[in-house]
């Protein structure tokens, strides 16, 4: 996982949302899939489909080493009254500033308390945390009492 990839992902989504684009694609990899799945679960995306460079697959296609270069992950972006649902997609950790928080700090952040320079979690907002190889929502991380790197916040 690279934070630069996440930054690219965030910029791409923000660019698409600015132009009111309904569907867009990102490279098909595990990291993008995990992040997109969280966005989908929290209701920021309307759909999540596997596809190729041409568009989402109509018939399921197996991902192999031969076709991985053309595989894409198609995301459906959401709008309400001509306003995008993703208004804000901000990186907390950057490649030059990785923010690792303890379990106590994560609990504080998830309950809305400011931690260091990070503003507490607001209603209608999600913060994604990287715990080991997994990526989870901050509420889940606080419940489990784990520590990890805070990646980004979306609202």
């Amino acid at each position, binding site marked *: 996982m690279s934070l630069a990839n996440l930054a690219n992902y965030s910029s791409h989504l923000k660019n698409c949302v600015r132009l009111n684009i309904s569907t867009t694609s990102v490279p*098909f*990899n*595990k990291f993008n*899939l*995990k992040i997109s*799945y969280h966005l989908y679960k929290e209701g920021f995306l309307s759909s999540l489909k596997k596809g190729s460079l041409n568009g989402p697959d109509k018939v399921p296609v*197996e*991902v*192999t*080493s031969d076709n*991985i270069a053309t595989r894409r992950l198609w995301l459906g972006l959401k709008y309400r009254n001509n306003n995008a649902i993703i208004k804000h997609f901000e990186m907390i950790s950057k490649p030059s500033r990785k923010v690792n928080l303890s379990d106590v700090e994560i609990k504080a952040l998830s309950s809305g308390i400011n931690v260091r320079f990070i503003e507490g979690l607001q209603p209608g907002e999600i913060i994604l945390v990287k715990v080991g190889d997994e990526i989870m929502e901050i509420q889940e991380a606080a*419940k*489990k009492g784990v520590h990890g790197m805070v990646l980004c916040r979306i609202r």
Partner: protein
Amino acid sequence: MPPGKRTIKFGGKSGILPRLRPIFKTPIRPKNDHELAEDANIEQGYAENVPLPKKRGFKFQRTLTPKPVISVEERIRKTIDETTPKVDVSKLSEEEKWKHQVGEIRRQHLREAYLKEHERLKKIDELENIKHEKEKEKQQLNKQHLEESEASKLTIPTMEDYLKGPIVRQRTFEEQTIIDAKRVLNRKMTELELKEEKANELLELYHASSKFIINEEQLQKAIIEAFQSDINKFENAQLSVKDKMRGLKDPSKELERSENMFLDSIVGELNGKPGLDIVKDTIDGQIEKLRREAELAINKD
């Protein structure tokens, strides 16, 4: 100073008292499951490959040997009942009677102390058990909250499961073998092409070498030819030099050259001389074989 202004130090005692010594130095009951589980988590003792330290008159153990369990009843029996002297009190003198009485009272106190301590420890144990059970319940509840229900596990699409494994299907052994073979073939084909190109160039050089000047007579002839005042030839040469400088080509010569090229490629020749394929076939004896077969066929007729 009015009372209550300052906090009492050391809980109202003068200084810190030493820890109370336990009445029972050995355990009075075997460890329960919960204690055993806790002990199992503790890593202690000497590992297999670590030599034991040496001390005179003392033997180190690899693991901690548990203290023997002596129940309160057994302790009372051993230390009080069995040590009570069996004497006839009526036969004792006054002093001995007094001593006996004191001993009896001391034993009585010890018994009471043992039983009281036993009661106290029992109560503590009960409280501990209740606490442990409550903790267990809390953990169970937490687990229920965190873990998904069976219904959601069965109904929600298996995205998490999909993310656990590799998202790209790896090539099977057969597919990998085919790809490896293809790669080898590609490499060999490029190598062959390069070699053929080189051989062609070599053959071209060989054919061209027939025109090389290799002795004095040929050189003389060439010099005379070069300086002969053949006007036509000279003008032609002059023209071609000028054209070359301008970047123009003689169209008639160009046509002739391309014609020759076509002819060469059709017949398989090189500048009107045997090409690589013909040379190869000759070396293999393929042409000879064909010729013989043709001769045989003609003779048959």
